[in-house]
């Protein structure tokens, strides 16, 4: 009976700790080893989670790509994404602009640019079209060695 009570108490304590975790403001990201540990994320489970993430090859995910015209009439591309990996992911991206006929607009701004995202973090970047003729885009990425 005593053992069951102890297990229940520990269970409730752990539940309370994990419940506290969820109360934080979603706009604020507290990283591992900054935030408090909990049942699923602690010094014991963390290496396992990292190894599993690497094993299944988690990486960058683009969650949103929004275009809008700015005050000068130029198309802006706002890219939002999330790095599912636990490791910082460094990569290149290149945005090419297309005109109303879906033809490529030659520009010196369409070059490979570097960016990075820390593990389990969201990231954003903005690209501006060099001319008002741009109506669409295509984006490519490659690994930053």
């Amino acid at each position: 009976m005593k053992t069951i009570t102890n297990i229940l108490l520990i269970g409730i304590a752990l539940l309370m700790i994990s419940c506290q975790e969820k109360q934080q403001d979603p706009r604020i990201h507290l990283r591992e080893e900054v935030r408090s540990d909990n049942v699923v994320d602690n010094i014991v489970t963390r290496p396992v989670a990292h190894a599993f993430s690497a094993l299944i090859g988690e990486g960058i995910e683009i969650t949103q790509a929004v275009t809008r015209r700015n005050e000068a009439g130029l198309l802006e591309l706002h890219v939002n994404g999330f790095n599912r990996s636990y490791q910082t992911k460094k990569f290149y991206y290149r945005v090419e602009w297309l005109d109303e006929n879906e033809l490529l607009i030659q520009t010196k701004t369409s070059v490979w640019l570097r960016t990075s995202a820390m593990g389990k973090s969201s990231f954003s970047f903005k690209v501006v079209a060099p001319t008002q003729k741009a109506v669409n885009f295509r984006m490519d990425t490659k690994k930053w060695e």
Partner: protein
Amino acid sequence: METRILVIVTFFAVLTAGCAQETAYIDTMHDEGKPVMGLDYRDFDQAASQMVQSMLGSGALKKKDGSRYVMTTARIVNDTMQRIDTDQLMAKIEQELLNSGQVVMTSAVGGKGSPDKMIYEMRDIRDSAQSDEFKKDTIAAKGQLIAPELSISGKILQRNLRYSKNRQQVEYYFQLKITDLTTGLRFWQEETLIGKRGSNKSVAW
């Protein structure tokens, strides 16, 4: 004995020829080459791209009446340890600004590389006896040049730091600003940093 020496010499000659590095074109669109400690074309491409995007994205070049600003390139200072022709950076930026349709560049005045001497040579001809050789209506009259409204100026800086016993850190800062020549007010300003870490043995100039 002579034959043996000849064979050895031939062998080394063939070996050296085989080791010679072939010259190859750089695939500038998808260059997989390793970075260098100095500034190469990729750094200029990146800096120019970021600068142009910042300029156009800021809205500073949008004229209220819908017309285009007349712009000149003033002095771009090379404060690095490298021999850099700053036109390498500005040519890309000027080209993109012209293509954007928001700005027209003037070759009448400006810093190094901006003015076109022919503008003034033609005016010297107009004011000389040689002007008789030209049709009068094809020679530029006085008061035709348009003064720039905006000026773009800047600086490229380099800082070398000791990162560890065997490694160094080199920081390159590209700074540009746009000034309204009528009021002297600064419309736009941007700094792009390109940082590199590498062996102390690499030379960054």
